């Protein structure tokens, strides 16, 4: 997963490139939580353009990040579903 922080816009971009299942989602979640805490962005974007597979674990992860972002008063947005 590639992580880019755009400091001017306070935008954190997560470009997910691997398959998303219950196994892989643990690493994604851990990394996403770490980077969100680290940068405290105003906006978070998940880019799924290069994701080749996703099951409901991915849905759980996105909803979880939405909730987490909302708790911190941030806006979340998903982007480019395959």
């Amino acid at each position, binding site marked *: 997963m590639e992580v880019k922080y755009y400091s001017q816009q306070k935008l954190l971009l997560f470009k997910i490139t691997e398959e998303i299942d219950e*196994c892989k989602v643990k690493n994604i979640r851990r990394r996403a939580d770490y980077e969100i805490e680290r940068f405290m962005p105003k906006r978070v974007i998940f880019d799924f353009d290069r994701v080749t597979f996703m099951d*409901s674990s991915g*849905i*759980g992860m996105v909803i979880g990040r939405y909730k987490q972002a909302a708790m911190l008063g941030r806006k979340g947005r998903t982007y480019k579903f395959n």
Partner: protein
Amino acid sequence: MINENEMKLEFISKSNNEAFARITVAAFVAGLDPTIEEISDIKTAVSEAVTNSIVHGYEDKLGIINLKCKIRDREVTIEVSDNGKGIENVEMAKQPLYTSRPNLERSGMGFTIMESFMDDLKVESVLGVGTKITMKKTIKEQQKEEIVTLEEALRG
């Protein structure tokens, strides 16, 4: 003569095997020449069933998961079974968004996805004994592309 095939796979309930299980089933049904969407649907349904066995059946402890695939003509039957703790209330478990482990960020959509992506879903479970998921999907006969000669194509 009806096309028939069968396979059985046994593996331990480690998360790494979710990918292994879906790729194996995809490889097994490849011979039916499914569309990308059909393969994707089957892979996702298998992923959901196997994940359920790992996360709920065995609750992340180690156990054995059985995966059986049968092909009869163009119908694929997939069976995922475990000797895990079983489901207390199957109807409640099948409800969209219901999860028995909300603290794990589970979406509760596993059964809903299996039901939507496969043509048929059967759930058999006994508390303390185990759970068996049986799903069926019929792979559609693809329209064969017409083979045209260059002359025919030029004639229009």
